[in-house]
């Protein structure tokens, strides 16, 4: 079963190319790393998939649904929670999620919050970067979505929190759901991913199975760095 199918996607802003002729298919149940240098178009690709970016050409289907609004029901994407002031509590944000996402699971949210050592009475402004990221992950995985999009979930997050975030992915990702994690490094997520998708020059340059790369006696990091050799 295909969870995501992108055909001939191009996306321009003003006269700048952001994405060019992207073709990508992701199967159900996979954990996929979306890698590439900063500014390669990883975030833009996620935003196009999630229906947050407009005026692109080509087709994007999530669980067979091409309509921008309708495919949102299958997608859970990390959000910086910018719509909430620092004085708001974690439970206020949960109330919002409960109201607008029919697939939000209260029990699961409570479980993940406990696993992350977060208290629902804490205010957003009092959370450290790592704690906030953990909250964002908790919110995302409290939804029973088909496609999870985590946009750089580890940037600025300490090692302990990173471990917790990775464990929570393994604990709470529904079996048949597909998880896409974007990052510009691969060290920590390498053991948990099925596939790597490399974005370079505004397009998908490679899509490989992680075990396939390792079977060639190459670590995924070496493989990834190989694409940037002689560029610095």
């Amino acid at each position: 079963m295909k969870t995501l199918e992108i055909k001939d996607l191009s996306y321009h802003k003003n006269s700048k190319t952001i994405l060019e002729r992207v073709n990508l298919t992701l199967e159900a149940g996979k954990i996929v790393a979306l890698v590439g240098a900063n500014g390669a178009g990883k975030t833009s690709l996620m935003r196009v998939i999630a229906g947050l970016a407009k005026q692109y050409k080509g087709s994007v289907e999530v669980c067979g649904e091409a309509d921008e609004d309708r495919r949102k029901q299958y997608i859970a994407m990390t959000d910086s929670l910018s719509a909430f002031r620092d004085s708001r509590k974690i439970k206020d944000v949960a109330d919002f999620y409960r109201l607008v996402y029919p697939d939000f699971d209260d029990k699961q949210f409570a479980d993940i919050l406990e696993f992350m050592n977060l208290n629902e009475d804490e205010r957003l402004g009092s959370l450290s970067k790592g704690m906030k990221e953990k909250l964002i992950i908790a919110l995302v995985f409290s939804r029973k979505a088909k496609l999870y999009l985590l946009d750089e979930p580890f940037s600025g997050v300490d090692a302990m929190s990173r471990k917790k975030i990775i464990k929570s992915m393994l604990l709470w990702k529904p079996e048949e759901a597909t998880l896409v994690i974007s990052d510009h490094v691969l060290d920590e997520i390498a053991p948990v991913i099925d596939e790597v998708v490399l974005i370079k020059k505004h397009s998908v340059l490679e899509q490989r199975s992680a075990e396939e790369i390792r079977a060639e006696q190459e670590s995924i990091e070496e493989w990834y760095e190989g694409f940037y050799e002689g560029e610095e």
Partner: protein
Amino acid sequence: MIGFKQTFAAMFKEKSRTTRLSLGIEAIFILLISLYFGIRYGFGSDSAGIGIGIAATVIFCVGIWYQIDVIMAAYRVNRSQTWRQVPVTAGNFLTANVLTGLVTAVIFALANLLIFVITLLPFIFGGEMRIDSQAVATFQPYVSSISNWLLYMTLFALVSFAGDICFWLLITESASVLGDFLPLKGRTSKFAKAVILLALLALLSWGSSSILGAVIRMVSNSGFDFNFVIDNTGLHTSQTDLGLPVISWLYMLAELVYVAILWAAEYFVFKKGVEAKK
């Protein structure tokens, strides 16, 4: 997917926080002023009337600020990544956004009316304000007519405010769409953007002002001398109840159509080009 009702409920819940907060601060401020003048000059005295003047000014200014804030809040919701991830159709999203703006504004206006009446209470019960029975008698036959007009104008104001929200959303969002996708560079791009926006602004303003102007002319030619309220000899009409002429409803219809056009244009721009902010 969620429907209009749930979207409306969620938006109302978030937006009404600002309404409550602003009202609370405003009410406390006005209460303090009234108390200050009341204690200093005696409640209900002429000098304490200064307090009412200040309260009225504060309410007026806060009212204008609040209208702007309602429009800005609508814009923020349309551009917010948090909101735009919500699985709802663009049409329901936009309608819920405009209507929650309208509803919070109505609540705000009613609450302000209440606050003002409360500040007036000491004067009503303090005996300084007497009701002139003769004026009431002269005024009596026109009460229903005047209340008809008030109702009409309130309704008209409501429809126009919904239009106002669409109007400013359309302008600000066109600006962001042009900023994102106008395929020009540097100065040319800025110039083209400015020209397009000014043309749009002029066109839309012309639309609203022609309808609004017509309604105002109609009301002022309705046969009432509104000086009546100030000096009770100024009533020059022989009719006892004017009712609402057919033309007033035609103007209302025109305004409704205009708001619908604004909404449709905004819907198009929103659905096709307005991205969530990063």
